[in-house]
C-alpha cells in the first residue's frame, strides 16, 4: 500500500485536525475515515432530531397548525430515513472502521481505497435525499415508501426518485463496507488472533456485515423496480395490475435485518464494556457468538411480521410469528450473559458503564413489547399505532443509540487522546435517560387507546382531545432529549480540545486498542502485537509489560 503517503505521526489529533483539509479529503487511513463517518452520523442525528422536535411541536395539542400536513409527511419521512440510514448505521460503521483493524491488530482495512470511496458515497447520498426539499417537495410516503402511494400516479414529484436514488447509493456503500470488513477480519488478524480469540465487537461486526451483504441488494432491487414503475411505466407494484404487497416483502426483507444491523454492533460494544468495568471476563463467550449467528439467521426469516394486516394466509403468518418470537431466545442469552458477567464483579460505574446499564434497562422494554407485537392477533390491534412508534424507539434509541453513546464515551480517549469531562458525561446520561423514557413510555398507552401513527394531528370530537395532555407531556420530554444531546456534543467538542490527556489505557481495558498510543499512530502499532487469549492486555499485564490495574488511576478520579 502507498506507505510513502502516510502523514507524519501525530501526537494527538490537535496536530492534524482541520489543518491540511486535503488530508481529510484524500486519506485512506481507516481511523480518519472512521472519524468522518462518525462526524457525518452525528450531524445526521442532530438534523433528524430537529425534524423530530418540529413534529413533536405540531403534535403537542390537538388541531395545531404549526406546519401543514404535507410538510409533516415530508419531515416524518426525512426523520425516519435520516435516523436509520444516515445516523445509526453510519455512526456504527464509523466506530467499526476505527476500531476493528486495531482490535484485530491490523495496520488498516483490507481495501483502503474502497473504504474511501464507500465513505464519500454517504455525504452524496444524504445530499441527494435532502435535495428533495429544494426541488418542490421531498419524499412524503414515510421511510418505508409503500406503493401505490409512492408511484408516479399518486406521487408525481421528484422526492420519491431522489429518495430511491439516495438509498441505492447507500446500499452500494454499505455492501462495499461489508466486504471490506469481512476481508479485513478474515485476512489481516495479528499473529495468534484466532477466531476463538476475536473480541466480541469484532464478531458483532462480522455478523452485521454478513447481514448487510445479504439484504442490501434486495433493497436496492426493490427501489430499482419502483423507479422502473415510475419512469418506464412498468407495473411491478403499481395498482393497475401490479402487486403493491410485493414491494412490502422486498422492503422488509431488508428492513427487519436492518434493525439488527443497527443493534448488533451495539451488542458488541456492550460485550466489550461490561467486562472492563466489572473486572471480569465475559461470561459465555461461545454462547455470545452463537447467539449473534442465531440472530443473523432468524432476522432474515421474520420480515413479514410487518405485514400481519395485509391479509396473508394464517399459516404463513404463524411461521413469521414463531420465527419472530424465537429471536427473543438469542437476545435473552446475550442479556443474561451480560448480567452474569457483571454479577460478582467490582463494578466501576463510569459514564460508559452507566450508558450500558441504561441500555439494558430500556432495551428490555423494547424486547418485551416486541413479543406482544409478534403475536398476530394482538398485532392487529397494535400495528400502525403509537404503540409501534414507542416500541421501535425503545429498540432503536433505547438499544442502538444508548449503546452507541456508551461506545463513544468508552473509546473517545483512544480516538482523541483526551478524557471526556465526567460531570458533563453524567448530565448527558441522566438527561437522556429521563428524557427518553418520558418521551416514549406513554406513547405505548396512546397507541393502546387508539392513536394511529403517522398522523399530522388528532382532530378530536370523539374523545381524542383527551390525548392532548399526554402529547404535551411527550413534547416537553423530547426537549429534555435535545438538551442531553447538546450537552453530549458540547462535551465532545470541548474535551477534544481541552480534556486531560488520557494515556494509553485509561480504563484498564482487555483488548488490543489499549496497547497502542492514544490516538494510535498511522499504522496503529509500532510493533505487531502477539495474541495469546481473548484478553491480550491482561496477558501483557501478567507478563509485566504493562502497569498493573491498580495504577490505572486516571479514570477513577474526577476530571
Amino acid at each position: 500500500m502507498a506507505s510513502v503517503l502516510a502523514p507524519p505521526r501525530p501526537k494527538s489529533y490537535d496536530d492534524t485536525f482541520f489543518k491540511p483539509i486535503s488530508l481529510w479529503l484524500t486519506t485512506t487511513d481507516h481511523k480518519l475515515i472512521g472519524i468522518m463517518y462518525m462526524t457525518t452520523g452525528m450531524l445526521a442525528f442532530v438534523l433528524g432530531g430537529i425534524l423530530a422536535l418540529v413534529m413533536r411541536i405540531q403534535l403537542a395539542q390537538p388541531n395545531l397548525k404549526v406546519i401543514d400536513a404535507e410538510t409533516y409527511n415530508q419531515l416524518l419521512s426525512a426523520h425516519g430515513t435520516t435516523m436509520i440510514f444516515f445516523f445509526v448505521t453510519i455512526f456504527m460503521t464509523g466506530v467499526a472502521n476505527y476500531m476493528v483493524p486495531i482490535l484485530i491488530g491490523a495496520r488498516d482495512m483490507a481495501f483502503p481505497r474502497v473504504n474511501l470511496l464507500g465513505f464519500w458515497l454517504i455525504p452524496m447520498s444524504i445530499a441527494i435525499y435532502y435535495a428533495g426539499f429544494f426541488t418542490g417537495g421531498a419524499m412524503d410516503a414515510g421511510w418505508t415508501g409503500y406503493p401505490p402511494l409512492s408511484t408516479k400516479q399518486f406521487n408525481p414529484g421528484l422526492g420519491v426518485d431522489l429518495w430511491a436514488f439516495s438509498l441505492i447509493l447507500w446500499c452500494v456503500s454499505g455492501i462495499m463496507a461489508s466486504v471490506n470488513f469481512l476481508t479485513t477480519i478474515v485476512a489481516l488478524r495479528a499473529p495468534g488472533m484466532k477466531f476463538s480469540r476475536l473480541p466480541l465487537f469484532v464478531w458483532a461486526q462480522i455478523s452485521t456485515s454478513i447481514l448487510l451483504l445479504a439484504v442490501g441488494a434486495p433493497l436496492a432491487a426493490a427501489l430499482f423496480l419502483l423507479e422502473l414503475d415510475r419512469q418506464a411505466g412498468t407495473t411491478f407494484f403499481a395498482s393497475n395490475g401490479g402487486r403493491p404487497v410485493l414491494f412490502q416483502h422486498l422492503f422488509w426483507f431488508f428492513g427487519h435485518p436492518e434493525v439488527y444491523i443497527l443493534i448488533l454492533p451495539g451488542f458488541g460494544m456492550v460485550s466489550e464494556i461490561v467486562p472492563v468495568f466489572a473486572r471480569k471476563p465475559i461470561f459465555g463467550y461461545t454462547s455470545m457468538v452463537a447467539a449473534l449467528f442465531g440472530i443473523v439467521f432468524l432476522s432474515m426469516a421474520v420480515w413479514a411480521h410487518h405485514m400481519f394486516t395485509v391479509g396473508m394466509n394464517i399459516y404463513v403468518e404463524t411461521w413469521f410469528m414463531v420465527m419472530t418470537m424465537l429471536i427473543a431466545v438469542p437476545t435473552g442469552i446475550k442479556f443474561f450473559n451480560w448480567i452474569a458477567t457483571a454479577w460478582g464483579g467490582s463494578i466501576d460505574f463510569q459514564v460508559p458503564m452507566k450508558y450500558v446499564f441504561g441500555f439494558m434497562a430500556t432495551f428490555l422494554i423494547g424486547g418485551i413489547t416486541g413479543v406482544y407485537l409478534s403475536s398476530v392477533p394482538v398485532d392487529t390491534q397494535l400495528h400502525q399505532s403509537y404503540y409501534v412508534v414507542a416500541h421501535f424507539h425503545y429498540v432503536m434509541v433505547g438499544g442502538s443509540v444508548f449503546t452507541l453513546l456508551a461506545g463513544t464515551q468508552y473509546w473517545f480517549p483512544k480516538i482523541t487522546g483526551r478524557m471526556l469531562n465526567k460531570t458533563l458525561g453524567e448530565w448527558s446520561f441522566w438527561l437522556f435517560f429521563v428524557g427518553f423514557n418520558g418521551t416514549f413510555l406513554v406513547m405505548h398507552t396512546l397507541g393502546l387507546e387508539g392513536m394511529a401513527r403517522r398522523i399530522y394531528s388528532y382532530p378530536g370530537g370523539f374523545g381524542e382531545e383527551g390525548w392532548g395532555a399526554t402529547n404535551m407531556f411527550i413534547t416537553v420530554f423530547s426537549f429534555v432529549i435535545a438538551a442531553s444531546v447538546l450537552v453530549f456534543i458540547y462535551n465532545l467538542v470541548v474535551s477534544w480540545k481541552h480534556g486531560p490527556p488520557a494515556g494509553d489505557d485509561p480504563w484498564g481495558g482487555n483488548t488490543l486498542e489499549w496497547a497502542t498510543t492514544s490516538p494510535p499512530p498511522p499504522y496503529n502499532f509500532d510493533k505487531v502485537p502477539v495474541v495469546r487469549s481473548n484478553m491480550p492486555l491482561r496477558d501483557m499485564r501478567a507478563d509485566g509489560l504493562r502497569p498493573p490495574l491498580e495504577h490505572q488511576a486516571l479514570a477513577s478520579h474526577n476530571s
Partner: protein
Amino acid sequence: MRGQPWLRRALISLPLVALLGMTLATAASAAEGGGSGLSPIVPKGNSPNGRHIYDLYLGISIPAILIFLLVEGLLLTVIIRFRRSRQPKDYQPPQWHGHRLLEIGWTAGPLLIVFFIGLFSFITLQRDYTAAASDNPDVDIHVVGHQYGWDYTYPEGFTVSSEGLQPTPLVIPTGKLVRLRLDSKDVIHGFWVPDLAGKADLVPGYQNLMWFKVDRPGEWRGECTELCGQGHYTMQIRVKAVSDADYEAFKRTSLEAKAKAGAPSPSTAPSPSAAPSPSAAPSGSPGASPGAGASPSPRPSGTGYSPTGQGASSS
C-alpha cells in the same frame, strides 16, 4: 459518581412519580369513560374477536411482567451490590468464563415461554382470522377506501359515503355477524376501530375480510391506519351499532333516499374524491357474488393475492 446523590435520586424518581400520577389519572378517567391516552391495555373489544385479543394481551402480560421484574431486579441488584465502592478494598472478582447449565437454562426458559405465547396466539388466529369465521354473515358490507374517505355498500344495494373529518357512521345491527369486505380504489388504507376489534388493510387488487359481532348499541371511533397521503389523518371512521328495529329503519330511509336521488350515497353529499382514480383500478365489486366461502378472500385460501380488476363487473 461522587456528584450529587440527591440530584441523581431526584432524577430517578421523576419518571416514577410521573408514571404513578398517570396511572391514577388513567384510573380516574377510565371510570368516567373518557380517554386520556394512558390506558395500559388494549381496548376490551365490544366484539368477540376484539375480546379474544384483549384476553391474549392479558395472557402475554403475565410472563412479560414477570420477566420485566426479574431482569430489572437483577440489574438493580448488580448496580447496588456489586459497585466497586461497596466492595472490600482488596476484592478480587471471581474469574468465571461461563456455566454450561445456567446458559442452557436461560436458553430453554424463554423458549418454553414463547412456545406457549405462540400456541395461544395460533389458537386465536385459527378461530377468528379465517374466512370460516365469517362465512355466513348476517350482514355483508363492502367497504371501499379512497383518498380520504370510505364507501360502505350494503347488501340491499345502497351506499353510505363517509368523507374526512366529519365521518358518517357505518351503521350495523347489534348481535349480528357483520362481515366487511375491504378494498381500495387508490392507495393502501387501513380500517381500524380499536373498541371493536383489530385492523385490516385495504389493498388495491384484492379483498380483505374483517368481521364484528357487536353486543351492545353504541358509537365508536376509528381511523385509517396506513399512511395514504396528505389527508391521511382526516380519514376518520365512526361505527354505530343499533338495535334491530333501528337498523331496519336505517335501511328503509337509506333505500328511500337512494330511490329519490336515483344515485347512491344518500347519507352525505356524494362528494366523489378528487383523487386520481385509474379506470383500470380494480373496483373489487361484489359482482361475482363472493358471498359464500369461496370469496376472493386472501386469508384462508393461501395465495394472498387475487387481483380482481380483470372481468369483475362494476355495480
